[in-house]
């Protein structure tokens, strides 16, 4: 049940794009074609999961050393280093995968969604009390945090794919000049967000 709660909250009712508005830049910039949307979404998911795995223990160490205010610097540094390493690693061991999602990796360093998931999963620890962040009625420990990151990333991937499909259709419409491009994309995103809003009515009995 807790598994389901985290899954639905991360991917649907608390979707990173439509409900929390994280990661809008890549969502608007790379969603012109379904192929590139899938590549970017997959790359973001991978980086989000690994970044959460690394930053969660690091944050506990920072708290122990009483330098928790350094979190932003440390997190962004970890993410940048991670993205660089991942790029080298994929290039070396799997050239086809590198061709599919390698070009999106450098963009991820400045993706809000990745830093946001690190901040969310370690945020409640920052209040000074050793209590866990609660998402979907579940107190996050390390395992749940990683799961949250995984499904948050998959929700992002889904948002990108849905949006790219819509945009490929929109391109064939004849629209007034003023609302071509970003405005119509934003309004479309609003309607998809309304569809996602329905998931907030799901309750997990606690």
């Amino acid at each position, binding site marked *: 049940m807790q598994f389901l709660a985290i899954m639905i909250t991360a991917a649907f009712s608390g979707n990173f794009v439509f*409900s929390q508005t994280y990661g809008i*830049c890549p969502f608007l910039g790379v969603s012109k074609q379904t192929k590139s949307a899938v590549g970017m979404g997959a790359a973001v998911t991978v980086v989000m999961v690994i970044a959460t795995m690394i930053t969660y223990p690091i944050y506990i160490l920072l708290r122990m050393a009483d330098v928790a205010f350094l979190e932003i610097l440390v997190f*962004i540094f970890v993410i940048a280093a991670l993205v660089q390493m991942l790029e080298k690693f994929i290039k070396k061991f799997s050239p086809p995968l590198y061709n599919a999602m390698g070009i999106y990796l450098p963009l991820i*360093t*400045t993706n809000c969604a990745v830093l946001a998931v690190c*901040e969310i999963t370690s945020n409640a620890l920052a209040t000074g009390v050793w209590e866990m962040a609660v998402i979907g009625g579940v107190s996050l420990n390390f395992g749940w945090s990683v799961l949250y990151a995984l499904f948050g990333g998959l929700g992002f991937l889904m948002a990108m794919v849905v949006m790219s499909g819509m945009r490929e259709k929109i391109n064939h419409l004849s629209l007034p000049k*003023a609302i071509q491009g*970003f405005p119509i994309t934003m309004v479309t*995103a609003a309607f998809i*967000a309304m569809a996602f809003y329905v998931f907030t009515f799901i309750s997990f009995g606690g």
Partner: protein
Amino acid sequence: MAEKNKYGKIFADGIIFNNPTFMLVLGTCPTLAMTSSAISAFGMGVSVLVILTLSNIVISALRKVIPNAVRIPAYIVVIATLVTVLKLFLDKVIPPLYDMMGTFLPLIVVNCLILGRAEAFASKHGVFESALDGIANGAGFTVALVIMGIIREFLGAGSFFGIEILGGFKIPFFSTPMGAFIVYGLCIAAFVAIIETAQRHSRIKKTRMLDGVTLGDRAETDKEAA
């Protein structure tokens, strides 16, 4: 005169013609998340203005020292340090704003607007111009956020900067992210349309003036001929 024109151009570009929010569509995450009320929008805008100006100053001062190959990590470290300072400052001095901004305060680090100005302007220009560019772009960002904040707060909460004016009437839809998407999209459309119309008008006026001059000349030559 030329100097003055250059600085005027930096400001006009930052606030109107290259407005980071409406024309370039940069830094969208805080724009969508923080504009549910005009006050939080203003707080976010001013925070970004301060960070952008300081980071532009620091980066343009260091632009000859930073090796080209590691410039992006160096910029990110500068920005992250400034954001950490701002975070500690707000936590101590303006706690309500700190609580209002939540996770979006640390996320200023990954705001594309700040890194974009560092890469596009501060790494190529002097300290003074970079500072002006930071102020201009930050002001453009703040103005855009406050416009959206006023619209969304008026529709979504029936109030203006926290003062209730519609007597309890409100459409809470506009306080949610869905309303944010719609208001943002329509604001971009309106802003672009207004700027283009204004430019077309000024162009028509200019051609008319030119026509007027030539007509006048012709009249004079006609007179002389007569």
